[in-house]
């Protein structure tokens, strides 16, 4: 195998990807971006929910993967899946717990086919426990993990979330794959990894949980506010629905903010003379700051304040993100051409590796685009055999 320096970290790894929707595909998106070969097993008549909704979403989360179509409910289809697993390193799936076993691809079967396989299941509640079969989507991962309750205006209701709680589960699952592969590299042993989207998310509010377990205090919503910093909020700027976030951590930054706003006298104001008094009077503070920010564009405020060494960033909207000079300079935003939906904006990796060529952005695969590559080139089947399986709707 070619293991030249130019290959990605995972260029020696092949992943069979049975996932759908967003959480699982986000995990394998990162595996692909790290160099692994990812083969998505799809079904021609039961389309991935993202393909059903919009090919654009599918494209964003499946860049550079291969797509094959197999009817897993047919015995011959199952045979194909097993042949693929036999020559692979990782299996990722995101069905409801138990569904893979019902299909005949539970871990015990997969392990018999490929003893050192690293198999990762991603589900809402985890693969065990009395609520394992409960239905859930990203919004429920956010609500059951405690994050929804903690998010919102201090005087308002909790906040519902969307896809980012799928992708958060996916990035943790990708880390889990690394652990499985590290152990396998050392010992030759594979294993099964059970990722609960809810549990992994609770790990991201550890300090709030500790406040409850140590002090019996239930964490509450506090908008953009901080436990001790002030000002610490988003402020309206000139333009339609434009905002800037500003946070001040000490007296030095406070003085710099007063001067930058052209109101140095505020620094002498008793209401704001130390961190505690600023925190206690932050509503008054927010009004004063807003009366200044509304006269400026959000990126103007950023530039003025950053020059003064005060932390300020626009609350970035989609148009701002795609026109952002920083992200462009870092080559984070690319355009790819997709045969069905045309030009698409896609992102590069959120990491850079010294000495490695930069990531080449890719589009998502068309449904079954790689059937020939996989069945003929990889599994060594003849074109006639493939045609026959297509006729039999095994390759669907």
């Amino acid at each position, binding site marked *: 195998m070619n293991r030249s320096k130019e290959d990605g970290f995972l260029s020696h790894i092949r992943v069979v990807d049975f996932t759908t929707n967003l959480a699982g595909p*986000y995990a394998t998106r990162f595996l692909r971006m790290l160099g692994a070969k990812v083969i998505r097993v799809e079904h021609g008549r039961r389309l991935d929910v993202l393909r059903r909704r919009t090919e654009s979403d599918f494209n964003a989360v499946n860049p550079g993967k291969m797509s094959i179509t197999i009817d897993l409910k047919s015995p011959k289809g199952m045979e194909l899946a097993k042949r693929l697993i036999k020559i692979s390193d990782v299996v990722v799936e995101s069905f409801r717990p138990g569904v893979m076993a019902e299909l005949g691809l539970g871990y015990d079967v997969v392990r018999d086919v490929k003893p050192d396989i690293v198999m990762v299941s991603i589900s809402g509640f985890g693969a065990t426990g009395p609520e394992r079969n409960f239905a859930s989507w990203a919004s429920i991962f956010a609500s059951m993990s405690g994050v929804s309750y903690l998010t919102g205006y201090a005087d308002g209701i909790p906040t519902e979330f969307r896809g980012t709680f799928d992708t958060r589960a996916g990035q943790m699952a990708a880390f889990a794959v690394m*652990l499985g592969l590290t152990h396998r590299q050392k010992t030759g042993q594979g*294993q099964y990894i059970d990722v609960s989207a809810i549990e992994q998310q609770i790990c991201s509010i550890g300090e709030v949980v500790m406040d409850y377990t140590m002090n019996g205090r239930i964490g509450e919503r506090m908008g953009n506010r901080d436990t001790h910093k002030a000002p610490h909020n988003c402020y309206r700027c000139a333009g339609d629905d434009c905002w800037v976030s500003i946070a001040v951590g000490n007296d030095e930054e406070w003085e710099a903010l007063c001067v930058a706003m052209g109101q140095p006298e505020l620094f002498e104001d008793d209401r704001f003379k130390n961190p505690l008094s600023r925190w206690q009077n932050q509503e008054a503070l927010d009004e004063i700051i807003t009366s200044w920010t509304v006269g400026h564009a959000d990126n103007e405020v950023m530039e003025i304040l950053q020059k003064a060494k005060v932390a300020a960033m626009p609350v970035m*909207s*989609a148009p701002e993100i795609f026109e952002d000079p920083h992200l462009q300079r870092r080559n984070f935003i690319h355009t790819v051409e997709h045969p069905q939906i045309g030009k698409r904006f896609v992102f590069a990796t959120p990491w850079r590796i010294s000495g490695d060529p930069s990531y080449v952005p890719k589009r998502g695969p068309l449904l079954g685009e790689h059937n020939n590559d996989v069945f003929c080139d990889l599994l060594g089947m003849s074109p006639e055999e493939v045609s026959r399986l297509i006729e039999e709707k095994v390759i669907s």
Partner: protein
Amino acid sequence: MTKQEEVINASQALAGLRVLEYSQFISGPYCTKLMANFGAEVIKVEPPGGDEARCHPPFFQDIPDKEMSGLFLYLNTNKSGITLNLDNEMGRIMFRELVKQADILVENNPPGTMKQYGLDYESLKQENPGLIMTSITPFGQDGPYSRYKSYPLNTYHAGGEGYCLPGGTGWQLNPDREPLKAGGYIGEYDAGTVAAMVSLAALLKREFTREGKFIEISQQEVLLSLMCTELGRYSDGWAESRATRWFPIAGLMQCKDGFVQVMPFERRMWNGLVNLLGDPSWSKDEKYDFANVYGRPTKGTGITGVGGRLQIQEEVNNILAEWVLQHTKEEIYYGAQERGTAVGIVCTTEDLLKSKQLQARQFFIEIEHPKVGKHPYPGLPFKMSSTPGQLKRPAPLLGEHNEEIYCHHLGFTKQELIQLREAKVI
């Protein structure tokens, strides 16, 4: 570590891996915590005053003590802690010695900090060519914003998600108010997870190349990536905001004792919910059939149910809201889920500790700490069948392992340690 713990540790996924951490607050410490969970030997290097997380609430019994911050205690379990003053030349020499013995170095200082100390990757790799060095910063190592000052609030709001919060009812109630950050510091944790993933990927490759790498993580790009589908829609000019994100049916609803997230997005789920309501007479009317309530999903918007008829949806929402308000979160959650309908409790931290599912999976793990005692901590982020990981050791006291690390690993004598302390090196 006790003998028994060492035996368990030897069989963990990252047994034998040596990780050095020179990080503050959350992103770097969470990255190495994830590794320490699964057997890596993590040495946390703190400046003599300690990681700033030590001064961050919540404090045990609200006593502001450097050994009692719940944030620090949570993020630094399973690690050894030493103090080292990098402003001192001897301190920097000792840091180099520690790096020589490390596989991975994780730091999250502002760009340029390590270089100022002469401890940047180019310099460190001379002595340890296999070193993997991972740097986490708000905006990356280069580019116009790289030197910008950014607290977690600012980084989060530069990441795309904040502009869309709160959506749904939260926005309808407050259409003119400011965008929100997610609760806690989850954007900081996100960067730690991605940093841990890429660091281990580099380690896998090192087995073949024997070469280390410098990895830089941009927190902003980690956050934008999480939004890759939503932001990808901008290719068609569709810009997500607080005003574009709502569930036409149900969603976040107030119940008798809190809030629930109700999501009956499929026919069987809708029927399950109607059944939970007691199959009321109105539900027999075809008008309230799933197909009529939801309509056809509209391509492109990512919103389920936009194609439904607004008037029916409003009626249905009113009926649901009234019913939900009269029932408790547990009644609604278990009642709906038993009927196959996706409903979640909007859990408080108290609800989390009481969850039967989390208890059955033994998610929370009790850890005893010398100064704050024994408390349950959030446990491991996932379950591994062969190398399950463990959460055993409490976070280190400031400088707790100075003697162990400096004497046993670097070969200093106890006498020299005293001198180093007097010279304010440690």
